[in-house]
Protein backbone atom coordinates (compact mmCIF):
# COMPACT_ATOMS: atom_id res chain seq x y z
CA UNK A 1 0.00 0.00 0.00
CA UNK A 2 0.97 3.62 -0.35
CA UNK A 3 0.66 5.67 2.83
CA UNK A 4 1.23 9.45 2.52
CA UNK A 5 3.77 8.85 -0.21
CA UNK A 6 5.57 5.98 1.56
CA UNK A 7 5.42 2.45 0.17
CA UNK A 8 4.38 -0.24 2.68
CA UNK A 9 4.14 -3.59 0.85
CA UNK A 10 1.53 -6.08 2.07
CA UNK A 11 2.81 -9.45 3.25
CA UNK A 12 5.89 -8.12 5.04
CA UNK A 13 6.34 -7.81 8.81
CA UNK A 14 7.43 -4.48 10.32
CA UNK A 15 8.98 -3.06 13.49
CA UNK A 16 8.11 0.27 15.05
CA UNK A 17 11.74 1.24 14.36
CA UNK A 18 11.08 1.03 10.60
CA UNK A 19 12.67 -2.29 9.68
CA UNK A 20 10.86 -4.83 7.53
CA UNK A 21 11.17 -8.64 7.64
CA UNK A 22 10.21 -11.04 4.92
CA UNK A 23 9.80 -14.79 5.30
CA UNK A 24 11.88 -16.36 2.53
CA UNK A 25 11.07 -19.90 3.65
CA UNK A 26 13.57 -20.64 6.39
CA UNK A 27 15.54 -17.43 6.26
CA UNK A 28 14.16 -14.00 7.14
CA UNK A 29 15.33 -11.17 4.93
CA UNK A 30 15.60 -7.79 6.68
CA UNK A 31 15.76 -4.21 5.45
CA UNK A 32 14.60 -0.69 6.28
CA UNK A 33 11.27 0.73 5.15
CA UNK A 34 10.70 3.30 2.43
CA UNK A 35 9.90 5.83 5.18
CA UNK A 36 13.23 5.16 6.93
CA UNK A 37 15.14 5.36 3.64
CA UNK A 38 13.46 8.61 2.64
CA UNK A 39 14.02 10.15 6.06
CA UNK A 40 17.72 9.27 5.96
CA UNK A 41 17.64 10.68 2.37
CA UNK A 42 21.07 9.69 1.30
CA UNK A 43 22.54 6.44 2.65
CA UNK A 44 26.33 6.30 2.26
CA UNK A 45 27.43 3.59 4.71
CA UNK A 46 25.76 0.44 5.95
CA UNK A 47 27.43 -1.37 8.85
CA UNK A 48 25.87 -4.81 9.12
CA UNK A 49 26.61 -7.64 11.54
CA UNK A 50 28.83 -10.47 10.23
CA UNK A 51 27.65 -13.85 8.99
CA UNK A 52 27.40 -16.09 12.04
CA UNK A 53 26.72 -13.26 14.50
CA UNK A 54 23.89 -13.83 16.94
CA UNK A 55 21.23 -11.16 16.99
CA UNK A 56 18.27 -10.71 19.29
CA UNK A 57 14.85 -9.29 18.60
CA UNK A 58 14.64 -5.47 18.79
CA UNK A 59 18.34 -5.16 19.68
CA UNK A 60 20.80 -3.06 17.68
CA UNK A 61 22.73 -5.09 15.10
CA UNK A 62 24.23 -2.40 12.89
CA UNK A 63 23.96 1.14 11.61
CA UNK A 64 22.71 2.85 8.49
CA UNK A 65 24.40 6.19 7.92
CA UNK A 66 23.48 9.06 5.63
CA UNK A 67 25.28 12.33 4.97
CA UNK A 68 23.28 13.99 7.72
CA UNK A 69 22.66 11.33 10.34
CA UNK A 70 23.37 7.86 11.67
CA UNK A 71 20.55 5.49 12.50
CA UNK A 72 20.67 2.21 14.46
CA UNK A 73 19.51 -0.93 12.75
CA UNK A 74 17.42 -3.20 14.99
CA UNK A 75 16.87 -6.87 14.33
CA UNK A 76 13.20 -7.78 13.89
CA UNK A 77 13.89 -11.33 15.12
CA UNK A 78 16.37 -13.32 17.19
CA UNK A 79 18.67 -15.75 15.42
CA UNK A 80 21.91 -16.06 13.50
CA UNK A 81 23.01 -13.88 10.59
CA UNK A 82 23.12 -16.10 7.50
CA UNK A 83 23.85 -13.57 4.74
CA UNK A 84 24.64 -9.90 4.37
CA UNK A 85 24.03 -7.86 1.23
CA UNK A 86 27.60 -7.23 0.07
CA UNK A 87 26.44 -5.07 -2.83
CA UNK A 88 25.80 -2.32 -0.30
CA UNK A 89 29.55 -1.92 0.33
CA UNK A 90 29.99 -0.37 -3.09
CA UNK A 91 26.38 0.69 -3.72
CA UNK A 92 24.82 1.91 -0.46
CA UNK A 93 22.41 4.05 -2.50
CA UNK A 94 20.46 0.86 -3.25
CA UNK A 95 18.92 1.30 0.21
CA UNK A 96 17.33 4.52 -1.05
CA UNK A 97 16.57 3.35 -4.58
CA UNK A 98 15.11 -0.02 -3.70
CA UNK A 99 14.55 -0.40 0.05
CA UNK A 100 12.37 -3.51 -0.22
CA UNK A 101 14.28 -5.31 -2.94
CA UNK A 102 17.92 -4.72 -3.97
CA UNK A 103 18.52 -2.62 -0.84
CA UNK A 104 17.93 -5.47 1.63
CA UNK A 105 20.47 -5.59 4.46
CA UNK A 106 20.81 -9.04 6.06
CA UNK A 107 19.21 -12.49 6.19
CA UNK A 108 18.68 -14.05 9.58
CA UNK A 109 18.08 -17.70 10.47
CA UNK A 110 15.49 -17.23 13.19
CA UNK A 111 15.63 -19.12 16.48
CA UNK A 112 12.13 -18.45 17.78
CA UNK A 113 10.12 -17.35 14.77
CA UNK A 114 6.63 -18.65 15.81
CA UNK A 115 6.66 -16.66 19.08
CA UNK A 116 8.52 -13.56 17.97
CA UNK A 117 6.62 -12.97 14.73
CA UNK A 118 3.55 -12.15 16.82
CA UNK A 119 5.39 -9.08 18.12
CA UNK A 120 5.82 -7.65 14.63
CA UNK A 121 3.36 -5.38 12.81
CA UNK A 122 1.57 -6.11 9.56
CA UNK A 123 1.37 -3.47 6.80
CA UNK A 124 -1.86 -1.98 8.15
CA UNK A 125 -0.56 -1.74 11.74
CA UNK A 126 2.73 -0.22 10.53
CA UNK A 127 0.82 2.37 8.47
CA UNK A 128 -1.19 3.28 11.59
CA UNK A 129 2.05 3.60 13.57
CA UNK A 130 3.56 5.82 10.87
CA UNK A 131 0.38 7.89 10.80
CA UNK A 132 0.66 8.59 14.51
CA UNK A 133 4.33 9.60 14.12
CA UNK A 134 3.67 11.92 11.20
CA UNK A 135 0.84 13.66 13.04
CA UNK A 136 3.19 14.78 15.83
Amino acid sequence: MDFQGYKIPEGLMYTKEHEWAKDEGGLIRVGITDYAAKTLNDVVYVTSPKVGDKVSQFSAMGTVESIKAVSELYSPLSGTVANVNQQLDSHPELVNKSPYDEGWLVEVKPSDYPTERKLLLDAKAYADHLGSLLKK
Partner: protein
Amino acid sequence: MPRTTQLFSYHRKHAQLTEFAGYEMPLWYTTTSEEHLAVRNSSGIFDVSHMGRVEIKGTAATSFLEGVVPTAVKTQPPGKAFYTLLLNERGGIIDDLIIMRLSDEHYVLVVNAANKEADLSHLRSCSPGPNLEIADFTSASVMIAVQGPKAAASLQPLADLDLSQLKRFRFSETRVLGNRALVSRTGYTGEDGFEVILFDSTNDNPEKALRVWEGLAHSSSPCGLGARDSLRLEAGFPLHGVDIDPRTNPFEADLSWVISAGKGDYVGSKALSESKSPPDFVRRGIVLGRGIPRHGFDVLSDSGKVGVVTSGTFSPILRRGIALGRMDQNSSGLGAKVRVMVRDSEVESTVVKPPFYDEQAYGWRRRSNDN
Protein backbone atom coordinates in the same frame (compact mmCIF):
# COMPACT_ATOMS: atom_id res chain seq x y z
CA MET B 1 6.58 29.75 15.07
CA PRO B 2 9.65 29.71 12.84
CA ARG B 3 10.02 32.50 10.30
CA THR B 4 9.88 31.84 6.61
CA THR B 5 11.61 33.44 3.64
CA GLN B 6 9.83 34.88 0.63
CA LEU B 7 10.48 31.68 -1.31
CA PHE B 8 8.73 29.50 1.27
CA SER B 9 5.77 28.60 -0.93
CA TYR B 10 8.23 26.97 -3.36
CA HIS B 11 10.15 25.14 -0.61
CA ARG B 12 6.98 23.83 1.02
CA LYS B 13 5.91 22.31 -2.26
CA HIS B 14 9.26 20.83 -3.31
CA ALA B 15 11.55 20.28 -0.30
CA GLN B 16 11.94 18.43 2.95
CA LEU B 17 11.97 21.29 5.47
CA THR B 18 14.05 21.86 8.56
CA GLU B 19 14.34 24.62 11.12
CA PHE B 20 17.59 26.60 11.05
CA ALA B 21 18.40 29.81 12.93
CA GLY B 22 14.71 30.41 13.57
CA TYR B 23 13.71 29.95 9.92
CA GLU B 24 11.88 27.10 8.26
CA MET B 25 14.27 26.25 5.43
CA PRO B 26 14.70 23.55 2.75
CA LEU B 27 16.95 20.66 3.87
CA TRP B 28 16.87 18.91 0.49
CA TYR B 29 14.77 18.80 -2.65
CA THR B 30 16.06 15.48 -4.08
CA THR B 31 19.06 14.19 -2.16
CA THR B 32 22.01 15.97 -0.60
CA SER B 33 24.47 14.05 -2.82
CA GLU B 34 22.65 14.89 -6.04
CA GLU B 35 22.41 18.57 -5.14
CA HIS B 36 26.05 18.63 -4.04
CA LEU B 37 27.22 17.11 -7.33
CA ALA B 38 25.00 19.47 -9.34
CA VAL B 39 26.95 22.39 -7.84
CA ARG B 40 30.37 20.79 -8.44
CA ASN B 41 29.52 19.79 -12.02
CA SER B 42 26.93 22.27 -13.24
CA SER B 43 24.92 24.81 -11.24
CA GLY B 44 22.78 24.95 -8.11
CA ILE B 45 20.66 27.63 -6.44
CA PHE B 46 20.24 28.22 -2.72
CA ASP B 47 17.77 30.39 -0.85
CA VAL B 48 20.07 32.23 1.56
CA SER B 49 17.54 34.90 2.47
CA HIS B 50 17.81 33.90 6.13
CA MET B 51 21.32 35.43 6.24
CA GLY B 52 21.45 38.85 7.83
CA ARG B 53 21.83 41.87 5.55
CA VAL B 54 22.86 45.14 7.15
CA GLU B 55 23.53 48.50 5.55
CA ILE B 56 26.05 50.93 7.00
CA LYS B 57 25.85 54.50 5.73
CA GLY B 58 27.22 57.90 6.58
CA THR B 59 30.32 60.04 6.44
CA ALA B 60 31.77 58.05 9.39
CA ALA B 61 31.13 54.64 7.76
CA THR B 62 34.69 53.86 6.66
CA SER B 63 36.41 54.99 9.84
CA PHE B 64 33.80 53.10 11.87
CA LEU B 65 34.33 49.80 10.03
CA GLU B 66 38.08 50.31 10.07
CA GLY B 67 37.87 50.25 13.86
CA VAL B 68 35.67 47.15 13.93
CA VAL B 69 37.22 44.57 11.57
CA PRO B 70 40.83 43.29 11.27
CA THR B 71 40.89 43.76 7.49
CA ALA B 72 41.89 47.10 5.94
CA VAL B 73 38.72 48.83 4.76
CA LYS B 74 39.72 52.19 3.34
CA THR B 75 42.06 50.69 0.74
CA GLN B 76 39.30 48.47 -0.70
CA PRO B 77 38.06 49.81 -4.03
CA PRO B 78 34.36 50.50 -4.53
CA GLY B 79 32.73 47.37 -5.94
CA LYS B 80 34.89 45.07 -3.81
CA ALA B 81 33.42 42.36 -1.56
CA PHE B 82 35.71 40.98 1.14
CA TYR B 83 35.56 38.28 3.79
CA THR B 84 36.38 39.36 7.33
CA LEU B 85 35.56 38.86 11.00
CA LEU B 86 33.89 40.66 13.87
CA LEU B 87 36.01 40.22 16.98
CA ASN B 88 35.38 40.82 20.65
CA GLU B 89 37.90 42.59 22.91
CA ARG B 90 39.57 39.24 23.65
CA GLY B 91 40.12 38.67 19.91
CA GLY B 92 37.45 35.95 19.78
CA ILE B 93 35.31 35.61 16.67
CA ILE B 94 31.78 37.01 17.14
CA ASP B 95 30.96 36.25 13.51
CA ASP B 96 32.42 35.92 10.05
CA LEU B 97 30.94 38.03 7.29
CA ILE B 98 31.21 39.54 3.83
CA ILE B 99 31.48 43.32 3.54
CA MET B 100 30.67 45.00 0.24
CA ARG B 101 32.01 48.51 -0.31
CA LEU B 102 29.63 50.55 -2.47
CA SER B 103 31.38 53.81 -1.65
CA ASP B 104 33.35 55.50 1.08
CA GLU B 105 30.06 56.22 2.85
CA HIS B 106 28.06 53.12 2.04
CA TYR B 107 28.60 49.42 2.85
CA VAL B 108 26.51 46.24 2.88
CA LEU B 109 27.33 43.50 5.40
CA VAL B 110 26.15 39.90 5.00
CA VAL B 111 26.27 38.01 8.31
CA ASN B 112 25.25 34.61 9.66
CA ALA B 113 21.53 34.27 10.36
CA ALA B 114 22.06 32.90 13.86
CA ASN B 115 24.38 35.79 14.79
CA LYS B 116 22.54 38.74 13.30
CA GLU B 117 21.16 40.14 16.55
CA ALA B 118 24.48 39.71 18.37
CA ASP B 119 26.29 41.39 15.46
CA LEU B 120 23.89 44.34 15.43
CA SER B 121 24.23 44.95 19.14
CA HIS B 122 28.02 44.60 18.86
CA LEU B 123 28.15 47.12 16.00
CA ARG B 124 25.89 49.55 17.88
CA SER B 125 28.02 49.21 21.00
CA CYS B 126 31.13 50.24 19.04
CA SER B 127 30.07 53.89 19.53
CA PRO B 128 28.97 54.71 15.99
CA GLY B 129 28.40 58.42 16.62
CA PRO B 130 25.98 60.72 14.82
CA ASN B 131 27.25 60.40 11.25
CA LEU B 132 26.43 56.75 10.94
CA GLU B 133 23.33 54.74 10.18
CA ILE B 134 23.14 50.98 10.79
CA ALA B 135 20.05 49.45 9.17
CA ASP B 136 18.96 45.81 9.04
CA PHE B 137 17.23 45.25 5.68
CA THR B 138 17.06 41.43 5.82
CA SER B 139 13.28 41.16 5.69
CA ALA B 140 12.98 43.78 2.93
CA SER B 141 15.16 41.77 0.55
CA VAL B 142 15.83 38.28 -0.79
CA MET B 143 19.18 36.60 -1.27
CA ILE B 144 19.79 33.76 -3.71
CA ALA B 145 23.15 32.03 -4.30
CA VAL B 146 23.82 30.63 -7.78
CA GLN B 147 26.85 28.34 -7.56
CA GLY B 148 28.80 26.05 -9.85
CA PRO B 149 30.83 26.07 -13.07
CA LYS B 150 27.67 26.87 -15.05
CA ALA B 151 26.36 29.52 -12.62
CA ALA B 152 27.13 32.42 -14.97
CA ALA B 153 25.27 30.75 -17.84
CA SER B 154 22.28 30.18 -15.56
CA LEU B 155 22.10 33.72 -14.15
CA GLN B 156 23.08 35.69 -17.26
CA PRO B 157 19.70 35.58 -19.08
CA LEU B 158 18.03 37.19 -16.02
CA ALA B 159 20.63 39.88 -15.29
CA ASP B 160 21.27 43.23 -17.01
CA LEU B 161 24.96 43.07 -16.11
CA ASP B 162 27.55 41.31 -18.31
CA LEU B 163 28.63 38.66 -15.79
CA SER B 164 31.82 37.82 -17.69
CA GLN B 165 33.07 41.29 -16.68
CA LEU B 166 32.50 40.67 -12.97
CA LYS B 167 35.64 39.36 -11.26
CA ARG B 168 35.81 37.11 -8.23
CA PHE B 169 34.99 39.07 -5.02
CA ARG B 170 33.57 41.98 -6.96
CA PHE B 171 29.96 43.06 -7.04
CA SER B 172 27.78 45.39 -9.02
CA GLU B 173 24.43 47.13 -8.65
CA THR B 174 22.22 46.03 -11.49
CA ARG B 175 18.77 44.66 -12.34
CA VAL B 176 17.64 41.05 -12.27
CA LEU B 177 14.35 40.45 -14.14
CA GLY B 178 13.87 44.20 -13.88
CA ASN B 179 14.30 44.33 -10.10
CA ARG B 180 16.94 46.41 -8.36
CA ALA B 181 19.66 44.00 -7.26
CA LEU B 182 23.19 43.66 -6.01
CA VAL B 183 25.10 40.81 -7.68
CA SER B 184 28.43 39.65 -6.23
CA ARG B 185 30.79 36.97 -7.49
CA THR B 186 30.99 35.24 -4.11
CA GLY B 187 29.73 32.11 -2.40
CA TYR B 188 30.12 29.44 0.23
CA THR B 189 30.68 26.35 -1.92
CA GLY B 190 34.23 26.73 -3.26
CA GLU B 191 32.83 26.98 -6.78
CA ASP B 192 32.55 29.94 -9.09
CA GLY B 193 29.20 31.61 -8.60
CA PHE B 194 27.15 34.58 -7.56
CA GLU B 195 25.05 35.86 -4.71
CA VAL B 196 22.09 37.98 -5.69
CA ILE B 197 20.41 40.38 -3.26
CA LEU B 198 17.04 41.54 -4.58
CA PHE B 199 15.89 44.78 -2.97
CA ASP B 200 12.35 46.01 -2.26
CA SER B 201 10.93 42.54 -1.77
CA THR B 202 8.94 41.50 1.30
CA ASN B 203 6.97 38.49 2.55
CA ASP B 204 3.77 40.31 1.61
CA ASN B 205 4.91 40.60 -2.00
CA PRO B 206 6.98 37.49 -2.75
CA GLU B 207 6.02 37.35 -6.45
CA LYS B 208 9.14 38.92 -7.92
CA ALA B 209 11.44 36.85 -5.73
CA LEU B 210 9.60 33.71 -6.81
CA ARG B 211 9.89 34.71 -10.48
CA VAL B 212 13.66 35.06 -10.16
CA TRP B 213 13.97 31.75 -8.27
CA GLU B 214 11.80 29.87 -10.76
CA GLY B 215 13.64 31.50 -13.66
CA LEU B 216 16.93 30.22 -12.26
CA ALA B 217 15.45 26.79 -11.49
CA HIS B 218 15.12 26.14 -15.25
CA SER B 219 18.90 25.85 -15.52
CA SER B 220 20.10 25.28 -11.92
CA SER B 221 19.21 22.60 -9.37
CA PRO B 222 17.53 23.89 -6.20
CA CYS B 223 19.74 22.93 -3.24
CA GLY B 224 18.91 22.69 0.44
CA LEU B 225 20.89 23.30 3.61
CA GLY B 226 22.16 19.69 3.51
CA ALA B 227 24.16 20.36 0.34
CA ARG B 228 25.11 23.84 1.54
CA ASP B 229 26.78 22.23 4.56
CA SER B 230 28.52 19.41 2.67
CA LEU B 231 29.76 21.85 -0.01
CA ARG B 232 31.18 24.40 2.42
CA LEU B 233 32.84 21.60 4.39
CA GLU B 234 34.42 20.08 1.27
CA ALA B 235 35.76 23.55 0.43
CA GLY B 236 37.12 23.82 4.00
CA PHE B 237 35.07 26.87 4.99
CA PRO B 238 34.32 27.08 8.72
CA LEU B 239 30.77 27.42 10.01
CA HIS B 240 30.49 29.94 12.82
CA GLY B 241 28.99 28.49 15.98
CA VAL B 242 30.38 25.05 15.12
CA ASP B 243 33.97 25.29 13.84
CA ILE B 244 34.74 28.77 15.14
CA ASP B 245 33.14 30.76 17.93
CA PRO B 246 33.74 33.70 20.30
CA ARG B 247 36.36 31.65 22.17
CA THR B 248 38.40 31.06 18.98
CA ASN B 249 40.79 33.75 17.72
CA PRO B 250 41.74 34.13 14.02
CA PHE B 251 45.08 32.32 14.51
CA GLU B 252 43.37 29.30 16.07
CA ALA B 253 40.73 29.43 13.32
CA ASP B 254 43.42 29.38 10.59
CA LEU B 255 41.96 32.69 9.40
CA SER B 256 44.88 35.00 10.21
CA TRP B 257 45.03 35.95 6.50
CA VAL B 258 42.09 38.30 7.10
CA ILE B 259 44.28 40.46 9.34
CA SER B 260 45.80 43.34 7.35
CA ALA B 261 49.30 44.23 8.41
CA GLY B 262 49.96 47.78 9.52
CA LYS B 263 46.41 48.97 9.94
CA GLY B 264 45.47 50.89 13.08
CA ASP B 265 43.67 49.66 16.18
CA TYR B 266 40.42 47.73 15.89
CA VAL B 267 38.28 45.82 18.38
CA GLY B 268 40.39 42.86 19.48
CA SER B 269 43.70 44.08 18.03
CA LYS B 270 45.35 44.49 21.41
CA ALA B 271 44.40 40.96 22.51
CA LEU B 272 45.60 39.51 19.20
CA SER B 273 48.96 41.25 19.44
CA GLU B 274 49.43 39.66 22.86
CA SER B 275 48.06 36.23 21.89
CA LYS B 276 50.20 33.13 21.94
CA SER B 277 52.08 32.42 18.72
CA PRO B 278 51.81 29.77 17.48
CA PRO B 279 48.46 29.07 19.18
CA ASP B 280 47.95 25.91 21.27
CA PHE B 281 45.43 24.54 18.80
CA VAL B 282 44.50 25.25 15.21
CA ARG B 283 41.73 24.39 12.73
CA ARG B 284 42.64 21.68 10.22
CA GLY B 285 41.05 19.30 7.73
CA ILE B 286 40.94 15.55 8.40
CA VAL B 287 40.26 12.80 5.83
CA LEU B 288 39.01 9.48 7.16
CA GLY B 289 39.42 5.89 6.04
CA ARG B 290 35.85 4.68 6.49
CA GLY B 291 32.96 6.19 8.41
CA ILE B 292 31.58 9.67 8.83
CA PRO B 293 33.00 12.00 11.46
CA ARG B 294 30.48 14.02 13.48
CA HIS B 295 30.72 17.07 15.75
CA GLY B 296 32.43 16.16 19.03
CA PHE B 297 34.23 12.98 17.92
CA ASP B 298 37.72 12.68 19.45
CA VAL B 299 40.92 12.67 17.40
CA LEU B 300 43.70 10.47 18.79
CA SER B 301 47.37 9.79 18.21
CA ASP B 302 49.70 7.41 20.02
CA SER B 303 50.14 10.06 22.70
CA GLY B 304 46.39 10.26 23.43
CA LYS B 305 43.73 12.77 22.50
CA VAL B 306 45.10 15.43 20.15
CA GLY B 307 41.96 17.08 18.83
CA VAL B 308 38.24 17.09 18.32
CA VAL B 309 36.02 17.07 15.25
CA THR B 310 34.09 20.35 15.03
CA SER B 311 32.10 19.39 11.94
CA GLY B 312 32.09 16.42 9.61
CA THR B 313 30.30 14.93 6.68
CA PHE B 314 30.61 12.46 3.85
CA SER B 315 32.30 14.02 0.82
CA PRO B 316 30.37 13.10 -2.33
CA ILE B 317 33.49 13.94 -4.40
CA LEU B 318 36.04 11.93 -2.37
CA ARG B 319 33.49 9.27 -1.35
CA ARG B 320 35.01 9.48 2.15
CA GLY B 321 34.33 11.02 5.51
CA ILE B 322 35.87 14.47 5.94
CA ALA B 323 36.06 16.77 8.93
CA LEU B 324 37.18 20.11 10.19
CA GLY B 325 38.81 19.68 13.56
CA ARG B 326 40.46 21.60 16.30
CA MET B 327 43.93 20.05 16.52
CA ASP B 328 46.70 20.46 19.06
CA GLN B 329 49.51 22.47 17.48
CA ASN B 330 52.00 19.58 17.67
CA SER B 331 49.61 17.19 15.88
CA SER B 332 48.48 19.66 13.24
CA GLY B 333 51.24 19.06 10.69
CA LEU B 334 49.91 18.38 7.22
CA GLY B 335 50.03 14.67 6.46
CA ALA B 336 50.07 13.71 10.16
CA LYS B 337 48.48 10.31 10.76
CA VAL B 338 45.78 10.35 13.41
CA ARG B 339 42.77 8.23 14.38
CA VAL B 340 39.21 9.50 14.65
CA MET B 341 36.93 7.76 17.17
CA VAL B 342 33.82 7.01 15.12
CA ARG B 343 31.57 5.80 17.92
CA ASP B 344 33.34 2.61 19.13
CA SER B 345 35.95 2.20 16.38
CA GLU B 346 39.21 4.02 15.70
CA VAL B 347 39.47 5.07 12.06
CA GLU B 348 42.86 5.77 10.44
CA SER B 349 42.85 9.38 9.24
CA THR B 350 45.14 12.05 7.83
CA VAL B 351 45.50 15.76 8.65
CA VAL B 352 45.20 17.88 5.49
CA LYS B 353 44.79 21.48 4.42
CA PRO B 354 41.40 22.04 2.78
CA PRO B 355 39.87 22.23 0.24
CA PHE B 356 39.44 18.49 0.26
CA TYR B 357 38.90 18.20 -3.50
CA ASP B 358 41.53 18.44 -6.25
CA GLU B 359 41.62 22.11 -7.22
CA GLN B 360 42.64 21.22 -10.77
CA ALA B 361 39.30 19.49 -11.22
CA TYR B 362 36.87 21.29 -8.89
CA GLY B 363 36.32 24.71 -7.39
CA TRP B 364 36.57 28.19 -8.91
CA ARG B 365 40.27 27.82 -9.62
CA ARG B 366 39.72 24.74 -11.78
CA ARG B 367 41.55 24.65 -15.09
CA SER B 368 38.45 24.72 -17.27
CA ASN B 369 37.41 28.00 -15.66
CA ASP B 370 38.62 30.85 -17.83
CA ASN B 371 37.92 33.60 -15.29
